[in-house]
């Protein structure tokens, strides 16, 4: 890209200057529109976001921020979950005691566990509210229908995360919830009993089920969820940014070809004016 400073540009500058540009490639406090756009585009963590968004997308009323809130609860869950993993042991003999120790003996353990628990509840709720907002604003319609499909998978993964995490305290509530929950899986026609057996790793809820649910909860599902979240966000850009009403689209100037990151990649410009 044009933004990478040439070696002779940084030559003779201070060491701090050279270190900064070796990492970020753009000035620390951008003043021009171009610099601002580039500091977003050149940053690994920010580049998933469009360099330019429509004014309407920035209004709180447009989305109520529900998608991002869901994402942030996921971040909280990853951070607190990893910390909880340092003290938790997924065996029937130890799981319950370790959970109690987390609440009584670990510094800030109660806070961590409660953060994890409440964020998990919040994530399910926020994901549902986010879907409701998307549906009610018609944002699931073409060309964004595949992102809706991704969203449905994200919801299912979120629910499955919630379900697998529910067993881990290994108390009576958890145990019987999973007995009942996996019995529901057993009701599936033909393959029901097999699915239940594979899910539990045994014919009843025991050490194998606890181990399987733990691995699903801390490794398999978060990885899949992270990948799908990345895909979900990327699709927002590729589908032309957040959905806007037609009268807004009609007023909007035609996408300027190379400059617009918001335009759908292969969409003809006349599509915008429909």
């Amino acid at each position, binding site marked *: 890209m044009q933004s990478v400073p040439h070696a002779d540009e940084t030559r003779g500058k201070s060491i701090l200057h050279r270190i900064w540009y070796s990492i970020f490639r753009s000035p620390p406090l951008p003043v021009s529109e171009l610099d601002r756009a580039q500091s977003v585009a050149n940053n690994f963590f920010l580049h998933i976001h469009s360099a330019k968004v429509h004014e309407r997308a920035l209004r709180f009323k447009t989305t109520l921020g529900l998608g991002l809130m869901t994402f942030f609860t996921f971040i909280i869950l990853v951070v607190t979950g990893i910390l909880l993993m340092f003290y938790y042991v997924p065996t029937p003999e130890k799981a319950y005691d370790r959970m109690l120790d987390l609440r009584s003996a670990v510094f800030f353990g109660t806070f961590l566990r409660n953060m994890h628990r409440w964020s998990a509840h919040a994530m399910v709720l926020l994901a549902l509210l986010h879907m409701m907002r998307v549906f009610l604003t018609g944002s699931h319609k073409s060309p964004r229908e595949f992102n809706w499909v991704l969203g449905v998978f994200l919801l299912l993964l979120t629910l499955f995360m919630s379900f697998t995490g529910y067993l881990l305290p290994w108390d009576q509530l958890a145990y019987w919830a999973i*007995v*009942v929950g996996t019995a*529901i899986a057993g009701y599936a026609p033909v393959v029901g009993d097999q699915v239940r057996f594979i899910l539990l790793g045994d014919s*009843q809820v025991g*050490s*194998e089920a606890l181990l399987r649910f733990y691995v699903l909860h801390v490794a398999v599902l978060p990885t899949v969820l992270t990948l799908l979240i990345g895909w979900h966000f990327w699709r927002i850009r590729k589908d032309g940014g957040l959905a806007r009403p037609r009268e807004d689209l009609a007023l909007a100037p035609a996408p300027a070809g190379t400059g617009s990151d918001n335009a759908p990649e292969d969409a003809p410009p006349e599509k915008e004016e429909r």
Partner: protein
Amino acid sequence: MSDTKLSKDRPPKEGNSRRRVLGMIATGALALSGSALGLLTAVFFKPRVTYGPPQKFRVGKPATFTSGSEIAYQKQAVLVRREGNQFAVISTKCTHLGCTVNATDIGFECPCHGSTYDRRGSNVSGPAPSPLAWFLISLAPNGDLVVDKDKKVPAGTYLEIKA
């Protein structure tokens, strides 16, 4: 420079070229090995050895049960009933959603959603869709009673032991 020379000699052809056939073979081989791997992984998740309580287990000598008794085995979720010299094993796993039912004077009752069963294990009321299972009980060569939860028997099947 050699690149331009090559492309001059052999201009890219449309349609069924050798490259296209090789590509199709490679794609087919990848799909085949991919689905084979998927199948193997699916088999991997079905355990051959389980570590929970075994499906077949001994409950002791017939003499340890008194006539008219019903002894519940919590872990295995079964109940051993003796009436006279007859023995039977009835599942205490509710057929609704798998909670453990309790024996009552008139049969069984599930604490979770209130399903009730009569003494034969037939579902009488509540959400339970089917009767409680009866399992095979037999005598081992050393005289121990053996319960096999993998083998279901019709309700009302008793094992007669000579006193």
